[in-house]
């Protein structure tokens, strides 16, 4: 992604407490930074909030982004803050239209870094086709934050053909995964651990709204549920679905796509890819009658080459996820208790 807008000339090169005071420094930061980069008709009004009209059913979602490191292979906190909320809305069958954007900055954050993040926010919101229409900036004392936290809240219009809900899931439905597992989590983990692999593993952060809305337009009510397996990974999402729908889920380890280098990294770090976070991936529970066409369409998407039907819904072993292992054994895939921790040996 091309990020080339030069940093404006400012009297300061680091964020200090004054930038969150609401006074002159705040306006300098906002005018030279946020408004200049992200401006649009609604934001430019600089009102306390944004006033707009939406059509039909509206979906709303919010998320807060605290990732460390701020920049990693394939993305950064700015991309995540836009894509994450856009994708949550997409999972509701909604096209994200407007976002709020709130920063908690830590005193001492380099303006250079903030500027770079802002530019990525701009690029990501343009790529996803959303407008940032209201926002907030606060500064906390050094040591009270971790450089920058971002919250985005989004609203979007639900597609007229969308009929997404746990109650629509029924036995026989197929479980489709849009791509390979665990890329984002392993990217972050290897950064934190200072590990380097022969091939570069990069985060899968990306907006999913366009492909999801295309699929909803084509398959409508035959898409029974959409979820993005972010924190907690695929295993957590499938367990939530099994419990929420009061049905069982069977998956096949052999069908679950994991890139070889990601798999190798998981083995080294002692992590199970089923529980590792993803940022540009979705799970669709679709009617068996359309699952093959659904998969075919999904595979046409530029990031859909590894999409796969990984399992199905059943009325056996209710509220449980069972996995057929590569060697033909079966085991329960449970919810994770706490964080996955690296093993001793």
């Amino acid at each position, binding site marked *: 992604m091309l990020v080339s807008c030069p940093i404006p000339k400012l009297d300061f090169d680091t964020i200090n407490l004054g930038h969150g005071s609401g006074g002159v420094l705040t306006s300098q930061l906002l005018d030279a930074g946020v408004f200049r980069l992200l401006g649009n008709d609604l934001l430019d009004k600089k009102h306390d909030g944004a006033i707009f009209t939406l059509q039909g059913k509206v979906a709303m979602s919010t998320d807060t982004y605290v990732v460390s490191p701020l920049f990693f292979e394939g993305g950064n906190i700015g991309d995540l803050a836009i894509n994450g909320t856009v994708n949550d809305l997409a999972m509701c069958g909604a096209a994200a239209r407007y976002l709020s954007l709130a920063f908690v900055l830590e005193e001492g954050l380099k303006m250079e870094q903030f500027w770079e993040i802002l530019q990525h926010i701009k690029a990501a919101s343009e790529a996803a086709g959303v407008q940032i229409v209201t926002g907030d900036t606060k500064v906390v004392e050094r040591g009270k934050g971790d450089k920058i936290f971002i919250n985005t809240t989004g609203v979007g219009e639900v597609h007229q053909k969308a009929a997404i809900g746990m109650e629509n899931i029924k036995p026989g439905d197929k479980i489709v995964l849009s791509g390979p597992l665990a890329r984002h989590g392993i990217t972050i983990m290897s950064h934190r*651990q200072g*590990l380097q692999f022969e091939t570069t593993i990069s985060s899968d952060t990306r907006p999913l709204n366009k492909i999801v809305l295309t699929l909803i337009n084509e398959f409508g009510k035959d898409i029974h549920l959409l979820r993005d397996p972010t924190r907690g990974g695929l295993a957590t999402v499938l367990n939530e679905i099994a419990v929420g729908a009061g049905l069982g889920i069977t998956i096949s380890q052999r069908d679950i796509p994991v890139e*070889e280098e990601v*798999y*190798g990294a998981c*083995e080294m*770090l*002692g992590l199970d890819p089923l529980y590792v976070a993803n940022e540009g991936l979705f799970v669709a529970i679709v009617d068996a009658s359309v699952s093959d066409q659904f998969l075919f369409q999904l595979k046409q998407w530029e990031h859909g080459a590894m999409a796969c039907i990984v399992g199905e819904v059943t009325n*056996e*072993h209710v509220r*449980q996820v*069972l*996995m*057929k*292992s*590569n*060697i*033909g*054994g*079966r*085991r*329960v895939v*449970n919810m994770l*208790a*706490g964080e996955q*921790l*690296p*093993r*001793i*040996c």
Partner: protein
Amino acid sequence: MKYISEFRSPEIVNTLLGEIKKILKGSWNIMEVCGGQTHSLVKNGLLNMLPANIQMIHGPGCPVCVTPVSLIDKAVHLAMEHDVILCSFGDMIRVPGSGMSLLEAKSKGGDVRILYSPLEAVKIARENPGREVVFFAVGFETTAPANALSVVHAYREGVKNYSILTSHVLVPPAMEAIMSDEDCRVDAFLAAGHVCAIMGIGEYYPLVEKYKIPIVVTGFEPVDLLEGILMTVRQLEAGTYKLENQYTRVVETEGNKNAIAVVDQIFEITNREWRGIGNIPFSGYAVKSAYSDFDANKKFDINIAEAHEDTTCLAGDVMKGKIKPDQCPNFGKKCTPTRPLGAPMVSSEGACAAYYHFNLAGSVHQ
């Protein structure tokens, strides 16, 4: 994963299972000693693929599980009261002490850091000369060389603010403690492959002779485990007992001489308390007195009351193979991974965690 894929091949797994079924006549209890083997059996669904006449008993080879409560209390004490940077492998930090776990200590302001290698802790010590850095050196013979090497590095580089809190345990004495128990139900052992990769296999000959019991040094992949089981069943059915090595691609008879040398340089053998099992003579490592500057036990005045294990926890019986995890009355009720009574419920290699996480307590519908 080119090299590893053949050890996960469904075809080879099926051939081995067929071979086991063909020769199996009796009913046998086989103990896999290492927690890594337990998890591989469970994670791959192997336990319910084996014939019903083969009962796998899950051994004590989970370093996190056997680290005594008092030592976790010491680590917590160092983090909370001595302002040290307490570094640890990941599994260790959720294990309950008598007061709190290291994870709780971290949330209460203790500087607890999760590392993959003790050498990283030496680096942290170098970068923070004003603070004491302690590495919580737990594990079997597998982690001992790296922990010893961290002391060698710190010694050579004159890093004076580094020390290790040692709780190393040794596998052969633990196996002997199980064999010599009157209630021992184990007919054969799968010895821990990675431990033997370091130490070699020589220590096991006397055990085979004394207790007349087959021991097969075994790896961790599904094909390794089934081949190890097949080799023990062959011996059991033939009424023989000998030491065999299934894991020849990794384990050499003499072990890793460099690793053994660095262990011998830093550590000496000592009696060791095993959580849930009790005191086992000559079953652990302590830092030699020549390196006592790097021994956190001696460097810090850790004056805390000796804590004891929760008596309602039956972890000892689980680790000795007397009961299966789900036969414990507390399993999944009073004891869960978020509110554990004992370590095997929280360690990633613990048998109770394996049963809980992969839900083997009878609710899998086949």
